[in-house]
Protein backbone atom coordinates (compact mmCIF):
# COMPACT_ATOMS: atom_id res chain seq x y z
CA UNK A 1 0.00 0.00 0.00
CA UNK A 2 1.34 3.38 -0.98
CA UNK A 3 0.64 5.81 1.82
CA UNK A 4 0.02 9.51 1.68
CA UNK A 5 3.31 10.02 3.52
CA UNK A 6 5.17 8.06 0.86
CA UNK A 7 3.61 10.12 -1.89
CA UNK A 8 4.59 13.23 -0.02
CA UNK A 9 8.14 12.01 0.42
CA UNK A 10 8.52 11.06 -3.24
CA UNK A 11 6.93 14.26 -4.49
CA UNK A 12 9.47 16.12 -2.38
CA UNK A 13 12.30 13.99 -3.78
CA UNK A 14 11.09 14.75 -7.32
CA UNK A 15 10.62 18.45 -6.46
CA UNK A 16 6.98 18.70 -7.38
CA UNK A 17 4.80 20.68 -5.06
CA UNK A 18 1.49 18.91 -4.59
CA UNK A 19 -1.32 20.49 -2.61
CA UNK A 20 -3.52 17.47 -2.23
CA UNK A 21 -1.62 14.25 -1.81
CA UNK A 22 -4.83 12.27 -1.41
CA UNK A 23 -5.73 13.13 -4.96
CA UNK A 24 -2.67 11.23 -6.15
CA UNK A 25 -2.67 8.38 -3.66
CA UNK A 26 -5.45 6.40 -5.27
CA UNK A 27 -4.20 6.51 -8.85
CA UNK A 28 -0.55 6.05 -8.00
CA UNK A 29 -1.52 3.20 -5.74
CA UNK A 30 -3.44 1.52 -8.58
CA UNK A 31 -0.50 1.91 -10.92
CA UNK A 32 2.12 0.62 -8.50
CA UNK A 33 -0.11 -2.27 -7.45
CA UNK A 34 -0.27 -3.25 -11.07
CA UNK A 35 3.53 -3.54 -11.12
CA UNK A 36 3.40 -6.27 -8.48
CA UNK A 37 2.82 -8.70 -11.33
CA UNK A 38 6.59 -8.42 -11.94
CA UNK A 39 7.10 -10.57 -8.83
CA UNK A 40 5.72 -13.60 -10.64
CA UNK A 41 7.76 -13.18 -13.83
CA UNK A 42 10.51 -15.49 -12.53
CA UNK A 43 13.34 -13.41 -13.96
CA UNK A 44 15.69 -13.27 -10.96
CA UNK A 45 18.50 -15.06 -12.78
CA UNK A 46 18.29 -12.89 -15.92
CA UNK A 47 21.30 -10.75 -16.83
CA UNK A 48 20.85 -7.11 -17.78
CA UNK A 49 22.08 -6.29 -21.23
CA UNK A 50 22.67 -3.06 -23.12
CA UNK A 51 23.73 -2.10 -26.64
CA UNK A 52 27.50 -1.87 -27.04
CA UNK A 53 29.81 0.43 -28.97
CA UNK A 54 33.50 -0.02 -29.79
CA UNK A 55 35.80 2.68 -28.42
CA UNK A 56 36.84 3.67 -31.95
CA UNK A 57 33.28 4.75 -32.77
CA UNK A 58 33.13 7.26 -29.95
CA UNK A 59 33.41 10.98 -30.61
CA UNK A 60 36.90 12.27 -31.37
CA UNK A 61 38.35 14.72 -28.88
CA UNK A 62 38.00 17.93 -30.84
CA UNK A 63 37.02 21.40 -29.65
CA UNK A 64 34.20 22.73 -31.83
CA UNK A 65 32.45 25.77 -30.33
CA UNK A 66 28.65 25.98 -30.66
CA UNK A 67 27.85 28.23 -33.59
CA UNK A 68 25.64 30.59 -31.63
CA UNK A 69 25.72 32.73 -28.52
CA UNK A 70 23.60 30.24 -26.67
CA UNK A 71 23.35 32.18 -23.41
CA UNK A 72 21.55 34.99 -25.20
CA UNK A 73 18.75 32.57 -26.04
CA UNK A 74 18.41 31.44 -22.43
CA UNK A 75 17.35 33.25 -19.27
CA UNK A 76 20.27 35.43 -18.25
CA UNK A 77 20.98 37.96 -15.60
CA UNK A 78 23.70 40.48 -14.65
CA UNK A 79 25.41 40.05 -17.99
CA UNK A 80 25.61 36.44 -19.00
CA UNK A 81 25.04 34.62 -15.72
CA UNK A 82 22.15 32.27 -15.19
CA UNK A 83 20.32 33.19 -12.03
CA UNK A 84 19.17 30.65 -9.46
CA UNK A 85 17.25 31.23 -6.23
CA UNK A 86 19.19 31.46 -3.00
CA UNK A 87 20.45 28.17 -1.63
CA UNK A 88 19.56 26.98 1.83
CA UNK A 89 22.91 26.68 3.53
Amino acid at each position, binding site marked *: MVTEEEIEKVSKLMRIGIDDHKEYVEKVHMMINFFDILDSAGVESEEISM*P*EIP*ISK*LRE*DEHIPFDDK*LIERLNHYKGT*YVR*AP*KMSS
Partner: protein
Amino acid sequence: MTMIGLEIHCQLTNLNSKLFCSCKANYREFKINENICPVCMGLPGSLPRLNQEAVKKATMIAMALNCTIPEKIAFFRKNYFYPDSPKNFQITQLNIYGDTSVGGTGSVMIGDKKIRITRIQLEEDPGRLIYDGSSSKNQITLVDYNRAGTPLVEIVTEPDFETPHEVRDFLNILSNILTNLGVADPSLEGAMRADANISIEGGKKVEIKNIGSFHDLEKAVHFEIIRQDSLHSRNIEIIQETRHWDDRRKITVSSRSKEEDLDYRYFLEGDIPWVKIDPEIQKKLKTEMPESISSKKARYISKYNIPAQVADVLSSDKYYSDLFEDAYTESNAKEVANIITTELMGLVDTREKREVSKFTSVHLRDLADAIQSGKVSRNSSKNALHEILKSGKDLSTVISELDLGNVSDESELSRIIAQIISEEPQAVEQSKSNSQTINYLVGKVMQKTKGKADPVLTLDILKKQIGI
Protein backbone atom coordinates in the same frame (compact mmCIF):
# COMPACT_ATOMS: atom_id res chain seq x y z
CA MET B 1 43.80 3.62 14.93
CA THR B 2 43.16 6.58 12.64
CA MET B 3 41.70 5.60 9.29
CA ILE B 4 41.60 8.01 6.39
CA GLY B 5 40.08 7.33 2.99
CA LEU B 6 40.11 9.70 0.02
CA GLU B 7 37.91 10.49 -2.96
CA ILE B 8 39.96 12.50 -5.37
CA HIS B 9 38.45 14.36 -8.29
CA CYS B 10 40.88 15.11 -11.04
CA GLN B 11 39.94 17.05 -14.17
CA LEU B 12 41.44 15.74 -17.41
CA THR B 13 42.66 19.24 -18.19
CA ASN B 14 44.76 18.23 -21.18
CA LEU B 15 41.82 17.06 -23.29
CA ASN B 16 40.49 19.31 -26.02
CA SER B 17 36.79 18.85 -25.42
CA LYS B 18 34.33 18.13 -22.62
CA LEU B 19 33.20 14.64 -21.67
CA PHE B 20 29.94 14.65 -23.65
CA CYS B 21 30.17 17.56 -26.08
CA SER B 22 32.68 19.51 -28.16
CA CYS B 23 32.96 22.54 -25.86
CA LYS B 24 36.41 23.12 -24.46
CA ALA B 25 37.61 20.97 -21.56
CA ASN B 26 39.78 23.74 -20.15
CA TYR B 27 37.10 26.36 -19.47
CA ARG B 28 39.37 28.83 -17.67
CA GLU B 29 39.92 31.26 -20.51
CA PHE B 30 36.24 31.92 -21.26
CA LYS B 31 33.87 34.70 -20.31
CA ILE B 32 30.89 33.65 -18.17
CA ASN B 33 28.68 31.10 -19.98
CA GLU B 34 30.56 31.30 -23.25
CA ASN B 35 31.83 27.73 -23.24
CA ILE B 36 28.40 26.10 -23.49
CA CYS B 37 26.22 24.29 -26.03
CA PRO B 38 22.83 22.53 -26.02
CA VAL B 39 24.44 19.30 -24.78
CA CYS B 40 26.33 20.57 -21.73
CA MET B 41 23.39 22.86 -20.94
CA GLY B 42 21.12 19.80 -21.00
CA LEU B 43 18.69 21.52 -23.35
CA PRO B 44 15.57 19.53 -24.27
CA GLY B 45 16.38 16.98 -26.98
CA SER B 46 20.17 17.10 -26.61
CA LEU B 47 22.12 13.87 -26.17
CA PRO B 48 25.53 13.16 -24.60
CA ARG B 49 28.34 12.03 -26.90
CA LEU B 50 31.15 10.33 -25.06
CA ASN B 51 34.68 11.60 -25.66
CA GLN B 52 36.85 8.73 -26.93
CA GLU B 53 40.06 10.23 -25.60
CA ALA B 54 38.57 10.70 -22.13
CA VAL B 55 37.85 6.97 -21.95
CA LYS B 56 41.39 6.18 -23.08
CA LYS B 57 43.06 8.60 -20.70
CA ALA B 58 40.93 7.49 -17.75
CA THR B 59 41.80 3.88 -18.55
CA MET B 60 45.49 4.81 -18.59
CA ILE B 61 45.14 6.33 -15.13
CA ALA B 62 43.51 3.11 -13.96
CA MET B 63 46.38 1.12 -15.46
CA ALA B 64 48.99 3.38 -13.86
CA LEU B 65 47.33 2.80 -10.48
CA ASN B 66 47.39 -0.96 -11.05
CA CYS B 67 43.61 -1.24 -11.24
CA THR B 68 41.69 -4.06 -12.84
CA ILE B 69 40.29 -2.99 -16.22
CA PRO B 70 36.75 -4.18 -17.01
CA GLU B 71 35.83 -5.55 -20.42
CA LYS B 72 32.98 -3.08 -20.74
CA ILE B 73 32.36 0.25 -19.12
CA ALA B 74 28.88 1.59 -18.41
CA PHE B 75 27.50 4.97 -17.40
CA PHE B 76 24.83 5.69 -14.84
CA ARG B 77 22.68 8.64 -13.89
CA LYS B 78 22.99 10.03 -10.39
CA ASN B 79 19.79 12.00 -9.83
CA TYR B 80 19.77 15.08 -7.62
CA PHE B 81 18.61 18.67 -7.97
CA TYR B 82 21.19 21.43 -7.87
CA PRO B 83 21.49 24.60 -9.97
CA ASP B 84 25.04 23.80 -11.13
CA SER B 85 23.78 20.60 -12.76
CA PRO B 86 21.88 21.57 -15.94
CA LYS B 87 20.13 18.21 -16.33
CA ASN B 88 19.60 17.78 -12.59
CA PHE B 89 21.41 14.50 -12.86
CA GLN B 90 25.08 13.70 -13.23
CA ILE B 91 26.35 11.11 -15.67
CA THR B 92 28.82 8.99 -13.72
CA GLN B 93 29.89 5.38 -13.21
CA LEU B 94 29.05 2.68 -10.70
CA ASN B 95 29.75 -0.98 -10.21
CA ILE B 96 26.27 -2.27 -9.37
CA TYR B 97 25.98 -4.60 -12.38
CA GLY B 98 29.49 -6.05 -12.14
CA ASP B 99 32.66 -3.99 -12.57
CA THR B 100 31.84 -1.41 -15.22
CA SER B 101 33.74 1.71 -14.11
CA VAL B 102 37.00 2.55 -15.92
CA GLY B 103 39.07 1.05 -13.09
CA GLY B 104 38.38 -1.64 -10.51
CA THR B 105 40.51 -2.39 -7.46
CA GLY B 106 44.14 -1.30 -7.57
CA SER B 107 46.98 -0.09 -5.37
CA VAL B 108 49.73 2.48 -4.96
CA MET B 109 52.87 2.06 -2.85
CA ILE B 110 54.04 4.88 -0.61
CA GLY B 111 57.44 3.62 0.34
CA ASP B 112 56.69 0.21 1.83
CA LYS B 113 53.07 0.94 2.53
CA LYS B 114 50.31 -0.18 0.20
CA ILE B 115 47.33 2.10 -0.36
CA ARG B 116 44.43 0.22 -1.91
CA ILE B 117 42.34 1.83 -4.64
CA THR B 118 38.64 0.95 -4.46
CA ARG B 119 37.68 2.10 -7.95
CA ILE B 120 38.18 4.78 -10.56
CA GLN B 121 35.29 6.35 -12.37
CA LEU B 122 34.81 8.80 -15.21
CA GLU B 123 32.17 11.50 -14.76
CA GLU B 124 31.17 15.05 -15.61
CA ASP B 125 32.04 18.12 -13.57
CA PRO B 126 29.13 20.46 -12.69
CA GLY B 127 29.03 24.21 -13.35
CA ARG B 128 30.11 26.81 -10.84
CA LEU B 129 27.91 28.72 -8.38
CA ILE B 130 28.68 32.27 -7.40
CA TYR B 131 26.88 33.73 -4.42
CA ASP B 132 25.88 37.32 -4.72
CA GLY B 133 24.23 39.68 -2.27
CA SER B 134 25.24 41.25 0.99
CA SER B 135 23.44 38.96 3.45
CA SER B 136 21.94 35.49 3.38
CA LYS B 137 18.51 37.15 3.32
CA ASN B 138 18.95 38.84 -0.02
CA GLN B 139 21.46 36.34 -1.34
CA ILE B 140 21.07 35.24 -4.93
CA THR B 141 22.89 32.51 -6.74
CA LEU B 142 24.56 33.04 -10.09
CA VAL B 143 25.61 30.14 -12.25
CA ASP B 144 28.41 29.83 -14.75
CA TYR B 145 28.13 26.61 -16.77
CA ASN B 146 31.48 26.85 -18.55
CA ARG B 147 32.83 24.05 -16.36
CA ALA B 148 29.72 21.85 -16.71
CA GLY B 149 30.69 18.65 -18.50
CA THR B 150 34.44 18.89 -17.98
CA PRO B 151 35.85 15.34 -17.84
CA LEU B 152 36.53 14.31 -14.28
CA VAL B 153 38.22 11.16 -12.99
CA GLU B 154 37.27 10.15 -9.48
CA ILE B 155 39.80 8.03 -7.61
CA VAL B 156 38.40 6.34 -4.52
CA THR B 157 40.78 4.79 -1.98
CA GLU B 158 40.23 2.41 0.89
CA PRO B 159 40.67 3.98 4.37
CA ASP B 160 44.33 2.95 4.39
CA PHE B 161 45.98 6.22 5.42
CA GLU B 162 46.89 6.76 9.04
CA THR B 163 48.53 10.19 9.02
CA PRO B 164 48.27 13.48 7.09
CA HIS B 165 51.85 12.85 6.09
CA GLU B 166 50.89 9.67 4.24
CA VAL B 167 48.10 11.60 2.57
CA ARG B 168 50.60 14.19 1.38
CA ASP B 169 53.01 11.55 0.08
CA PHE B 170 50.18 9.86 -1.79
CA LEU B 171 49.04 13.14 -3.34
CA ASN B 172 52.57 13.90 -4.50
CA ILE B 173 52.90 10.48 -6.09
CA LEU B 174 49.46 10.81 -7.68
CA SER B 175 50.21 14.30 -9.04
CA ASN B 176 53.43 13.03 -10.55
CA ILE B 177 51.70 10.03 -12.13
CA LEU B 178 48.94 12.17 -13.63
CA THR B 179 51.43 14.70 -14.96
CA ASN B 180 53.69 12.00 -16.31
CA LEU B 181 50.73 10.46 -18.19
CA GLY B 182 50.10 13.85 -19.74
CA VAL B 183 46.41 13.71 -18.80
CA ALA B 184 46.20 16.56 -16.36
CA ASP B 185 47.93 19.57 -14.96
CA PRO B 186 47.39 19.32 -11.19
CA SER B 187 48.69 22.85 -10.70
CA LEU B 188 45.73 24.45 -12.49
CA GLU B 189 43.27 26.07 -10.13
CA GLY B 190 40.39 23.71 -9.33
CA ALA B 191 41.85 20.85 -11.33
CA MET B 192 42.21 18.66 -8.26
CA ARG B 193 39.56 18.46 -5.58
CA ALA B 194 38.88 15.94 -2.89
CA ASP B 195 36.62 14.55 -0.22
CA ALA B 196 38.03 12.65 2.74
CA ASN B 197 36.56 10.34 5.34
CA ILE B 198 38.26 10.21 8.68
CA SER B 199 37.74 8.21 11.84
CA ILE B 200 39.87 7.87 14.91
CA GLU B 201 39.91 4.99 17.38
CA GLY B 202 36.49 4.68 18.97
CA GLY B 203 34.83 7.35 16.82
CA LYS B 204 32.36 7.32 13.93
CA LYS B 205 33.30 8.09 10.36
CA VAL B 206 33.22 11.77 9.40
CA GLU B 207 33.15 12.89 5.80
CA ILE B 208 34.87 16.09 4.75
CA LYS B 209 33.61 17.51 1.48
CA ASN B 210 34.57 20.31 -0.81
CA ILE B 211 38.34 20.42 -0.40
CA GLY B 212 39.51 22.56 -3.29
CA SER B 213 43.18 21.62 -3.64
CA PHE B 214 45.73 19.00 -2.64
CA HIS B 215 47.38 21.54 -0.42
CA ASP B 216 44.19 22.06 1.56
CA LEU B 217 43.44 18.33 1.65
CA GLU B 218 46.43 17.67 3.85
CA LYS B 219 45.47 20.62 6.05
CA ALA B 220 41.86 19.49 6.29
CA VAL B 221 42.87 15.98 7.30
CA HIS B 222 45.24 17.39 9.87
CA PHE B 223 42.62 19.73 11.28
CA GLU B 224 39.98 17.04 11.44
CA ILE B 225 42.19 14.57 13.30
CA ILE B 226 43.02 17.21 15.89
CA ARG B 227 39.33 18.11 16.22
CA GLN B 228 38.32 14.49 16.71
CA ASP B 229 41.19 13.82 19.12
CA SER B 230 40.19 16.80 21.16
CA LEU B 231 36.55 15.63 21.34
CA HIS B 232 37.71 12.18 22.27
CA SER B 233 39.98 13.41 25.04
CA ARG B 234 37.05 15.28 26.54
CA ASN B 235 34.83 12.19 26.26
CA ILE B 236 32.55 13.86 23.73
CA GLU B 237 31.02 11.47 21.21
CA ILE B 238 32.21 11.78 17.63
CA ILE B 239 29.06 11.50 15.54
CA GLN B 240 28.80 10.29 11.97
CA GLU B 241 28.33 13.40 9.89
CA THR B 242 29.30 15.31 6.80
CA ARG B 243 31.45 18.39 7.27
CA HIS B 244 32.60 20.97 4.79
CA TRP B 245 36.07 22.39 4.42
CA ASP B 246 35.94 26.13 4.95
CA ASP B 247 38.50 27.30 2.49
CA ARG B 248 38.85 30.75 4.03
CA ARG B 249 39.06 29.87 7.70
CA LYS B 250 40.87 26.58 7.06
CA ILE B 251 38.61 24.58 9.35
CA THR B 252 35.92 21.93 8.86
CA VAL B 253 32.34 22.88 9.63
CA SER B 254 29.33 20.66 10.10
CA SER B 255 26.89 20.83 7.20
CA ARG B 256 23.22 20.35 7.85
CA SER B 257 22.64 18.06 4.91
CA LYS B 258 19.21 16.53 4.61
CA GLU B 259 19.53 12.76 4.66
CA GLU B 260 16.20 12.32 2.88
CA ASP B 261 17.70 13.88 -0.23
CA LEU B 262 20.37 11.27 -0.61
CA ASP B 263 18.34 8.83 -2.69
CA TYR B 264 20.12 9.22 -6.02
CA ARG B 265 17.97 6.69 -7.89
CA TYR B 266 20.97 5.45 -9.86
CA PHE B 267 20.13 3.75 -13.13
CA LEU B 268 21.79 3.05 -16.47
CA GLU B 269 22.27 5.96 -18.89
CA GLY B 270 20.51 4.70 -22.01
CA ASP B 271 21.97 7.39 -24.26
CA ILE B 272 25.47 5.91 -23.97
CA PRO B 273 25.95 2.31 -25.07
CA TRP B 274 28.38 0.17 -23.08
CA VAL B 275 31.91 0.71 -24.32
CA LYS B 276 33.99 -2.37 -25.00
CA ILE B 277 37.55 -2.25 -23.65
CA ASP B 278 38.68 -5.64 -24.94
CA PRO B 279 42.15 -7.10 -24.25
CA GLU B 280 43.42 -5.92 -27.62
CA ILE B 281 42.50 -2.31 -26.88
CA GLN B 282 44.02 -2.62 -23.42
CA LYS B 283 47.25 -3.82 -24.98
CA LYS B 284 47.24 -0.95 -27.44
CA LEU B 285 46.61 1.60 -24.69
CA LYS B 286 49.50 0.18 -22.71
CA THR B 287 51.87 0.72 -25.60
CA GLU B 288 50.59 4.28 -26.00
CA MET B 289 51.24 5.07 -22.35
CA PRO B 290 54.33 7.17 -21.60
CA GLU B 291 57.17 5.43 -19.74
CA SER B 292 56.32 5.15 -16.04
CA ILE B 293 58.18 7.10 -13.39
CA SER B 294 59.68 3.97 -11.83
CA SER B 295 60.93 2.71 -15.17
CA LYS B 296 62.52 6.10 -15.91
CA LYS B 297 64.25 6.09 -12.56
CA ALA B 298 65.67 2.62 -13.10
CA ARG B 299 66.95 3.60 -16.51
CA TYR B 300 68.64 6.78 -15.23
CA ILE B 301 70.49 4.78 -12.59
CA SER B 302 71.56 1.83 -14.69
CA LYS B 303 72.27 3.55 -17.99
CA TYR B 304 73.76 6.89 -16.98
CA ASN B 305 75.13 6.11 -13.55
CA ILE B 306 73.06 8.83 -11.97
CA PRO B 307 72.85 8.48 -8.16
CA ALA B 308 69.56 6.98 -6.98
CA GLN B 309 68.48 10.07 -5.09
CA VAL B 310 69.06 12.34 -8.08
CA ALA B 311 67.34 9.87 -10.39
CA ASP B 312 64.34 9.80 -8.07
CA VAL B 313 63.90 13.56 -8.11
CA LEU B 314 64.53 13.76 -11.83
CA SER B 315 62.10 11.02 -12.89
CA SER B 316 59.14 12.01 -10.75
CA ASP B 317 58.71 15.51 -12.15
CA LYS B 318 57.70 15.43 -15.79
CA TYR B 319 59.02 18.93 -16.47
CA TYR B 320 62.52 17.97 -15.36
CA SER B 321 62.53 14.51 -16.86
CA ASP B 322 61.37 15.91 -20.21
CA LEU B 323 64.21 18.45 -20.10
CA PHE B 324 66.64 15.71 -19.23
CA GLU B 325 65.43 13.40 -22.00
CA ASP B 326 65.80 16.14 -24.60
CA ALA B 327 69.18 17.43 -23.44
CA TYR B 328 71.32 14.48 -22.49
CA THR B 329 73.94 12.81 -24.67
CA GLU B 330 75.96 9.70 -23.94
CA SER B 331 78.76 11.82 -22.54
CA ASN B 332 76.98 14.58 -20.62
CA ALA B 333 74.06 12.81 -18.92
CA LYS B 334 75.45 13.10 -15.42
CA GLU B 335 76.29 16.77 -15.86
CA VAL B 336 72.77 17.48 -17.26
CA ALA B 337 71.20 15.71 -14.26
CA ASN B 338 73.49 17.68 -11.99
CA ILE B 339 72.55 21.05 -13.43
CA ILE B 340 68.84 20.24 -13.14
CA THR B 341 68.93 19.00 -9.57
CA THR B 342 71.43 21.46 -8.09
CA GLU B 343 70.76 24.66 -10.02
CA LEU B 344 67.56 24.64 -12.03
CA MET B 345 65.15 23.26 -9.42
CA GLY B 346 65.47 26.27 -7.18
CA LEU B 347 64.78 28.61 -10.06
CA VAL B 348 61.68 27.06 -11.71
CA ASP B 349 59.84 25.46 -8.82
CA THR B 350 56.41 26.87 -9.60
CA ARG B 351 54.12 26.67 -12.56
CA GLU B 352 54.28 30.44 -13.06
CA LYS B 353 58.08 30.47 -13.11
CA ARG B 354 58.11 27.63 -15.60
CA GLU B 355 55.67 29.46 -17.82
CA VAL B 356 57.73 32.66 -18.00
CA SER B 357 61.07 30.85 -18.19
CA LYS B 358 62.76 30.97 -21.62
CA PHE B 359 64.99 28.04 -20.78
CA THR B 360 65.05 25.11 -23.22
CA SER B 361 66.68 21.72 -23.46
CA VAL B 362 69.13 23.18 -26.01
CA HIS B 363 70.38 25.63 -23.39
CA LEU B 364 70.71 22.76 -20.96
CA ARG B 365 72.75 20.65 -23.35
CA ASP B 366 75.04 23.56 -24.30
CA LEU B 367 75.59 24.41 -20.68
CA ALA B 368 76.49 20.86 -19.71
CA ASP B 369 78.86 20.58 -22.66
CA ALA B 370 80.50 23.93 -21.85
CA ILE B 371 81.12 22.92 -18.23
CA GLN B 372 82.54 19.56 -19.25
CA SER B 373 84.89 21.06 -21.83
CA GLY B 374 86.02 23.80 -19.46
CA LYS B 375 84.57 26.56 -21.59
CA VAL B 376 82.75 27.90 -18.59
CA SER B 377 83.34 27.32 -14.93
CA ARG B 378 80.70 25.82 -12.71
CA ASN B 379 80.66 29.07 -10.84
CA SER B 380 79.98 31.17 -13.93
CA SER B 381 77.42 28.68 -15.22
CA LYS B 382 75.04 29.83 -12.49
CA ASN B 383 75.15 33.37 -13.80
CA ALA B 384 74.61 32.11 -17.31
CA LEU B 385 71.58 30.10 -16.18
CA HIS B 386 69.95 33.13 -14.55
CA GLU B 387 70.45 35.18 -17.67
CA ILE B 388 69.09 32.48 -19.99
CA LEU B 389 65.95 32.06 -17.88
CA LYS B 390 65.32 35.78 -18.23
CA SER B 391 66.31 36.44 -21.82
CA GLY B 392 66.25 33.10 -23.59
CA LYS B 393 69.44 34.04 -25.47
CA ASP B 394 71.67 31.20 -26.51
CA LEU B 395 74.58 30.21 -24.30
CA SER B 396 77.42 31.57 -26.45
CA THR B 397 75.74 34.98 -26.66
CA VAL B 398 75.25 35.03 -22.91
CA ILE B 399 78.87 34.05 -22.29
CA SER B 400 80.26 36.78 -24.48
CA GLU B 401 77.80 39.47 -23.38
CA LEU B 402 78.44 38.85 -19.69
CA ASP B 403 82.07 38.01 -20.30
CA LEU B 404 81.67 34.71 -18.50
CA GLY B 405 83.97 32.64 -20.68
CA ASN B 406 87.09 31.05 -19.19
CA VAL B 407 90.41 32.73 -19.98
CA SER B 408 91.82 29.88 -21.94
CA ASP B 409 94.03 31.87 -24.28
CA GLU B 410 97.49 30.57 -23.38
CA SER B 411 99.52 33.74 -24.09
CA GLU B 412 97.03 35.92 -22.20
CA LEU B 413 97.10 33.56 -19.24
CA SER B 414 100.96 33.28 -19.41
CA ARG B 415 101.22 37.05 -19.21
CA ILE B 416 98.96 37.19 -16.11
CA ILE B 417 100.81 34.28 -14.45
CA ALA B 418 104.22 35.89 -15.10
CA GLN B 419 102.95 39.00 -13.35
CA ILE B 420 101.71 36.97 -10.32
CA ILE B 421 105.08 35.19 -10.10
CA SER B 422 106.94 38.48 -10.00
CA GLU B 423 104.56 39.83 -7.32
CA GLU B 424 104.77 36.74 -5.08
CA PRO B 425 108.45 35.67 -4.93
CA GLN B 426 108.05 34.17 -1.48
CA ALA B 427 105.16 31.92 -2.41
CA VAL B 428 106.92 30.86 -5.58
CA GLU B 429 109.93 29.84 -3.58
CA GLN B 430 107.82 27.91 -1.05
CA SER B 431 105.91 26.13 -3.78
CA LYS B 432 109.06 24.46 -4.90
CA SER B 433 109.22 22.54 -1.61
CA ASN B 434 105.54 22.58 -0.51
CA SER B 435 103.10 21.43 -3.22
CA GLN B 436 100.13 22.93 -1.31
CA THR B 437 101.41 26.48 -1.91
CA ILE B 438 100.74 26.21 -5.62
CA ASN B 439 96.98 26.34 -4.85
CA TYR B 440 97.53 29.74 -3.25
CA LEU B 441 99.02 30.92 -6.55
CA VAL B 442 96.15 29.42 -8.55
CA GLY B 443 93.80 31.35 -6.26
CA LYS B 444 95.71 34.57 -7.00
CA VAL B 445 95.30 33.94 -10.74
CA MET B 446 91.57 33.32 -10.24
CA GLN B 447 91.31 36.55 -8.30
CA LYS B 448 92.94 38.48 -11.08
CA THR B 449 90.75 36.87 -13.78
CA LYS B 450 87.56 37.09 -11.72
CA GLY B 451 87.33 33.31 -11.63
CA LYS B 452 87.39 32.87 -15.38
CA ALA B 453 90.83 31.30 -15.76
CA ASP B 454 90.71 27.72 -16.91
CA PRO B 455 91.94 26.02 -13.71
CA VAL B 456 93.66 23.09 -15.47
CA LEU B 457 95.51 25.33 -17.87
CA THR B 458 96.46 27.74 -15.08
CA LEU B 459 98.08 24.99 -13.04
CA ASP B 460 99.89 23.78 -16.10
CA ILE B 461 101.44 27.16 -16.97
CA LEU B 462 102.24 27.95 -13.35
CA LYS B 463 104.22 24.74 -12.98
CA LYS B 464 106.00 25.31 -16.25
CA GLN B 465 107.00 28.91 -15.42
CA ILE B 466 108.15 28.09 -11.89
CA GLY B 467 109.84 25.00 -13.15
CA ILE B 468 108.37 22.28 -10.96
